[in-house]
């Protein structure tokens, strides 16, 4: 990236400002994810409600970022690295907003699940998966602000672990449901939660790709193997 400053110093302030909004939004999403995971594990419906309420703040921040970016584009007509910066800000705020939605969804399902008998074993696995995604998000945001392509690439690779954890959970839920149909409702909710967390990982991956685009000017080639193999599992489990 350019270390030099713009001749118009207000331009630097504009770019710094939208990027600091991204960092703030990222922090809020991190909190939402960890709170949602904790609420789910502890059956803490109050905390779950709080996560749902806070999502409005995340959405509002996304809108604020979009309007600030629009203003920068209109006033400064950014080019080259500056252009990539504002484009990545827009894209990343979209990723963060989606992640916030998934956290909110976790909160909603937590309220429903807390009324039902617990499914043994699933809590720990979901917590580990969520933690992994949250660390990935933190690292992705660090990679963004440091313009660290290596770290971004590393995080991107870690998404395979998330996919694997999701596959394992998927099979576990299937087993529970087949063992006892009374588990079906709870397992369906838990499965959606696992799927949402897996999707969060995809959004973190997309943030990492933006970091690479920002620095190199090109999106990375898609060399990651798709690790979600549950569509095969379904056909296998029919027999």
């Amino acid at each position, binding site marked *: 990236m*350019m270390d*030099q400053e*713009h*001749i118009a110093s207000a331009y630097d302030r504009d770019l710094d400002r939208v990027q600091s909004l991204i960092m703030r939004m990222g922090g809020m999403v991190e909190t939402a994810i960890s709170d949602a995971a904790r609420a789910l594990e502890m059956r803490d419906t109050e905390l779950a409600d709080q996560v749902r309420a806070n999502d409005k703040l995340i959405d509002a921040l996304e809108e604020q970022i979009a309007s600030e970016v629009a203003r920068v584009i209109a006033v400064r007509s950014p*080019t*080259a*690295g500056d*252009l*990539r910066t504002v484009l990545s800000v827009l894209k990343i705020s979209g990723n963060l907003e989606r992640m916030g939605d998934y956290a909110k969804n976790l909160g909603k399902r937590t309220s429903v699940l807390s009324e039902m008998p617990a499914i043994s074993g699933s809590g720990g696995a979901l917590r580990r998966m969520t933690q992994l995604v949250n660390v990935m998000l933190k690292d992705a945001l660090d990679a963004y602000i440091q313009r660290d392509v290596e770290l971004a690439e590393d995080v991107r690779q870690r998404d395979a672990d998330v996919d694997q954890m999701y596959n394992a959970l998927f099979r576990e839920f299937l087993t529970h449901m087949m063992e006892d149909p009374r588990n079906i409702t709870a397992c369906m909710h838990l499965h959606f939660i696992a799927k949402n967390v897996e999707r969060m990982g995809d959004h973190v991956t997309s943030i990492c790709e933006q970091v690479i685009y920002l620095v190199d000017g090109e999106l990375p080639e898609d060399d990651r193997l798709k690790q979600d193999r549950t569509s095969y599992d379904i056909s296998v489990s029919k027999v």
Partner: protein
Amino acid sequence: MSKDIKISAKGVDVFYGDTHAIKNVDIEIENKAVTAFIGPSGCGKSTFLRCINRMNDTIDICRVTGDILLEGQDIYAKSVDPVQLRARVGMVFQKPNPFPKSIYDNVAYGPTIHGLAKSKAELDEIVEQSLRRAAIWDEVKDRLHQPGTGLSGGQQQRLCIGRAIATAPEVLLMDEPCSALDPIATAQVEELIDDLRQNYTVVIVTHSMQQAARVSQKTAFFHLGHVVEYGDTNKIFTNPEDSRTESYITGRIG
């Protein structure tokens, strides 16, 4: 060579007395495309542009070395008549310079001396079309026989554009053609440039990065007499190779 090259410069140096204004420039300009020259003031854009139709010949202390080929033919060869060359390679100057004649005559002059019109009616038609394309017809149609020098700066600039396209040159060199124009006339001139590209090769010098990005397919970044970077406009404005290019187009201290 996959692309059709209209102008090819090889090892071009230009001196004004002791001032070394252009330093070993190699560039291949595509046929039927718009090429933008950008770069800080004094970096040699106008100087290089003037080499392409030998306008530097008119400056006593100016010396040009190296080769400039127009469709493979050396334009500095003894056999080339600069006046004929300038009919093929037209120019719009940085400062508007209408002849001290009527608006009509300013435009009719070129087509007349090159015998492009068979009749008065045909000449009238060329004048009207040229002025229309230069986005000035409506403003001058009722005063065609008043002096061109009596127009406003922006109108003079458009008159000069009309004059330059009246002879249907193969190559049109434009040195900051929109520097004195309002946004409407600028948009009209950009529209004209885009239209000219169907049949002609256009080289435009501009200080507006947005204009270069909008109108050109190729961009050359000049810096201290060198061509630092030359390539697809899309690439230059989204992901330039050279840090000097990036500093310049993003408005940083370079």
